[in-house]
Structure formats: C-alpha cells, structure tokens
C-alpha cells in the first residue's frame, strides 16, 4: 500500500500580493510555500504511514525549483518525490494539468489499496478542479472535502464536509481524496528528517518520460491542450482609502454613528 500526494508550490497570500502594472502577478517578489490544503494531505498520508507503515510519495508539477518544496516534504517524512517538469506542460489549464499529473501518477503506478491525495484547492487559482479531474482521468472514485479519514482493510471511510453538515462515505481503494484544513495539523520537519531528506530519491518526469502515456498528447496538454483560454485578466479598481477618524474616544464613535445614521446605513 502507498499514498501518492499531489502538491503544488504557490505564492504566499498571507502577506501582500504584488501585482505588476500590466495586471499580471509579480511572482518574483512573493515568497513561495507549499499550498496549505496540500500540507493537510501530506499530513494525512504521513499519519497513515505512522499507522500502517505504508509508503508516502509526493508529486508536484512545476518548474525545477519546486524540488526544494519536495525536499521539505521528504524532511517531514515522505519517502520519495516526483517532479513533473517540462516546457511542453506550460500554459496548462486545470483540464490539461490533470491529464499530465494523472500520467505522472500512472508512471508511479496505482494499485489496489493505494490512495491518491490532493489538497482541496490551491490558494493561487482557488479552482478546486484538479483533484476531481485527476480522479476522472485515472478512473478512480473520488471523495472531496475530506475532514476525517479512516482506513479499514481495503475500504476507506471519509467524513466529507458539506456547508450545513457532513456525509460519511465509504469508498474502496484505490481512490482519490481531497483534503481540507479541518483534517489535521501538519507536522514540522524534524532535524533527522532534514538530514535524511537529501538522500531520499527525487525523480524528474519530463515530457520524454511521460510521452508514451495515452493521456499525454499535444492536443490535451499545455496551452494547446487547454479547453479554456484567458480572454483578458485585469485588476479591479482600488477602493479609495476611506476616512481615518481622529481620536478613539466617545466623541469619535458618536461622530461615526452620526455619519452612518445620516447616510441611512444604520
């Protein structure tokens, strides 16, 4: 049994987002992190490893520096890393991305008992689409919004969150789960883990390595294989900074309440 966790390196949006004058994101000026929901998926996989001794493999698609992120996940306790990287893969939308990542997962191999895990959504795109689309491409059953995961033989029981409650879902392996932050608290890298991380294998999967998979076709990957196109991207007008009121006493509060009342806001 093994758990394959699909992860993404994203700009950190807990700080300020830097936007270029042309409306594109100034990625260079932002720190990168492992996507938060993906960290919950990694932690869920490592918990299963603690319980069952299964192998944990982390996979990402991204530029070569994303290897650094994989090393951090290996230092947390993952066993192997795969970096899917190639110019041919650039410009992919969620459909094309899922084709490529699914081909990468196929290369690693999914067998009975295995679980593929993803974070629910990445904080850069917020689409929550790649997980279910990988599941479809791999013909695996999916359970999204997993807030609790129990393995019982070849079956998995998942607590799947809804807006107004939850469902309990039983699913057979192999399957794909997408994880949310309520699932767990990701562990830190350990000192020993950091030491070992550099002796663990990270395999690069480029176009050559994946091209024989039927999922990899010029019409289904990269910009040309993406069903969606960006017509235009733009920044919304900055809301003009409002009024800083003087002081912070009863007079200030009365003045504010007076303005709200005058504008019929209260």
């Amino acid at each position, binding site marked *: 049994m093994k758990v394959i966790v699909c992860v993404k390196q994203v700009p950190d949006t807990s700080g300020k*987002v830097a936007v270029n004058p042309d*409306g594109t994101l100034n990625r260079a000026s932002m720190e990168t992190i492992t996507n938060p929901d993906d960290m919950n998926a990694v932690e869920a996989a490592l918990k299963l490893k603690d319980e069952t001794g299964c192998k944990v493999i982390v996979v990402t698609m991204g530029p070569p520096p994303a290897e650094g992120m994989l090393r951090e996940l290996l230092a947390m306790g993952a066993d192997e890393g795969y970096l899917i990287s190639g110019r041919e893969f650039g410009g992919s939308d969620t459909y094309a991305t899922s084709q490529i990542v699914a081909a990468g997962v196929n290369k690693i191999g999914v067998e009975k008992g295995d679980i593929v895990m993803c974070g629910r959504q990445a*904080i850069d795109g917020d689409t929550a689409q790649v997980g279910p689309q990988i599941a*479809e491409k791999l013909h695996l059953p999916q359970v999204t919004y997993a807030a609790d995961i129990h393995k019982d033989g070849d079956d998995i029981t998942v607590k799947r969150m809804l807006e107004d409650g*939850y*469902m309990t*879902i039983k699913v057979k392996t192999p399957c794909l789960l997408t994880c949310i932050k309520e699932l767990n608290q990701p562990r830190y890298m350990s000192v020993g883990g950091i030491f070992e991380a550099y002796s663990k294998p990270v395999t690069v999967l480029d176009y050559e390595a994946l091209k024989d998979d039927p999922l990899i076709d010029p019409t289904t990957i990269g910009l040309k294989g993406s069903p969606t196109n960006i017509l235009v991207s733009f920044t919304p007008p900055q809301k003009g*900074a409002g009024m800083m009121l003087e002081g912070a006493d*009863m007079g200030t509060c009365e003045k504010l*309440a007076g303005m709200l009342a005058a504008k019929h806001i209260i």
Partner: protein
Amino acid sequence: MAFNNTDLAAFKDVWVFCEQREGKLMPTDFELISEGRRLADELGVDLCGLLLGDNVEGIAKELGGYGADKVYVCDHSLLKVYTTDAYAKVICDVIEELKPEAFLIGATNIGRDLGPRCAARLHTGLCADCTHLDVDMGIYKDFLHEASTLEDARIDGLNTAMVLGEKHDVSRDLKMTRPAFGGHLMASIICPRFRPTMATVRPGVMKKRPFDQAKADACQIIKPKFELSESDLNTQVTEVVKAAKKLVDLIGADFIVSVGRGISKDVEGGIKLAEELAAELGGVVGGSRAVIDSGWLSADHQVGQTGKTVHPKVYVALGISGAIQHKAGMQDSECIIAVNKNDSAPIFEIADYGICGDLFKVTPMLTEAIRAAKAAK
C-alpha cells in the same frame, strides 16, 4: 451518432444544474436560474433546469417561476443522496444526448465536486467559482469599464481572442469572470473550442428575480431517458448529518462584526464585545482565519479566501490587520469600518471609516453611540 463536442453548431440552450438536498431546492438554484435567463435571452435560446433526485418532479415547476422554460427531471432511487459517480454519469449521459451550449452549476461543496468530474469526462472547459457571466459584448464591456482598470481602448478591442494561433470571434462565447489571488486579480475565461461551456458560480452573487407564477405554470417538465445501476457506484454514503448547532449565516447577513488576532489578550471578552455590537446592528459575528485556526470561533464564522465571501451593508473589522486572504472575503462590503491599534494595518487601505485605537475600549463606545444614534432617529 458519436458525441462530438467540437461541433459547436450542434449545441444550444443554457442549462442550470439545480441542486437539491433532502428533496429541497437550494437557494443557489434560483440565483442561477435567474442569471441563466439573462444569458439564454442574450443567446436567443431556451433556459433549462436539470434536476436529479428521487421523486423530485413536484419541486421542478418552481424553477419556472424564476425563468426556466423547461426542467429536465431525472428521478431514481440512487439519485436521492448526492454521489459523484451517479450524478456525473447521469449528467454526462444526458448532456451527450441533448447537447446544451452552456452548463452552469452552483459552486457549493457538491457543485465543486461534480463540475470538474463532468468537465473532465466531457473533455470541455470549466471555469471555477465565477462571479460574473456575460454573452452580450455591449453588456460585458460596460461591466469591464466599471469593474476593471483596463484602458478603454483595450476593452473596446476585446472582440476577438487568439486561439491556437488564429483570431477567434468571442461574441457568442460565454465570458466567465472570476477572481484569483483573493480578488487582487480578475480574469475573464472563455471556452472557445468545446461545448458545453461549463461554469461553477459562487453562491450569493447572482441576483434572484421576482417569482412569476404564470411562468412557473408554463414551465415544461421533461423526463429524459438515462440508465443507472448499483454497479455504477464506487462509493456508499452511510449517513448524512446536519450540523447540530445552527450555523451562522454570514452570506445572508446585512451586518457583520468580525474579530481578528487583536482579541488575543482577552478572547472571550473580545468576542462578547463583538456580539454586543452585532446585536445592536442586527447582525452576526465573523472571524479571521487566525481566530478560527486558534479555535476561538468555529469554522462557520470564517470570513476570507478559505472561508466565506461576504458583502454585507456594513462590515466591522475589530483587530483584524487585513491580510490579503481576509480582504478577499470582505472587500466588496458596502461599508467597511475598521478598528485597529496599528495605524499602518492594511485593513485601513480598504476601510471607509477607520479608527486607530484599542478595540476593547472603542467597541463598547461604538455600540453605545450607534444605540444612541438609532434612538435619536
């Protein structure tokens, strides 16, 4: 005939997936039907609802009252409770048979499970969590003039897009606009080569039309043929549990008072002050991610990119610094009031009214002042 999703002319009508839970339609269904009506009119086609469930035919006509010309109803005992496998199979089979041009799904926890699975199977494009949809170029450009910082000349020239190296006329494409990076960037997406064009649409954003009884009576109910059996399902839902306590309705609230890390020195006291102000305003209490992650408020209170997106009449931010992921969830509020000790907190950049001060001192005074101002009216 085999399903050819690149034969664009073979596809027509706008469809809306009408989600039901426990046999009841979701509020999002009426929002999407209302919005879908406008899009169908712009395209000159019919608007159709697609309703799956077990014995749900009786609730279908109501959708007509908000604009649906027809509702396709798929009744089956295996469709009573949502499962990805059963719903995706029936929907994809019906779409391949009846060929809608556009397919809208509410971006609920269920819609965002279902949409990508169907789009991947149908080999078509899906745009996630849209906040604006357009077909008509004039209306679309008016929207961009108002909601973007693009230069007028750029907007006026947006009649074509380069698709696979060729100029493509976008006038009949659905322009699907969505925020990324917590609203700092917006993008309009098209799906020029495949049909149906698919979008999940953020709940609470599209406006519901007034209900029209005559239109509801005239709505046609159609039961398309489909096949479904136990063997199509790889998952088993063993229970569906409603949250025991009543969850806070942030999306529907007109007034929200949210607390941030600033309450840390007296968590209970800070929340109590927020509750008192919210009660005076007739609103509810929200919180930033830090507050939810620390366990001070439950997850249903979270405002922000990973929580709820809200647009109340008044949003009061108490001790919230205004990280981008928080602003993403509240920056479209009609009036933002921020109280923070740090005068350089980013929240002041978007606040209509800012008070630099200690929330523990300012909040009770503000509650009192608002009470007095209301009494004086």
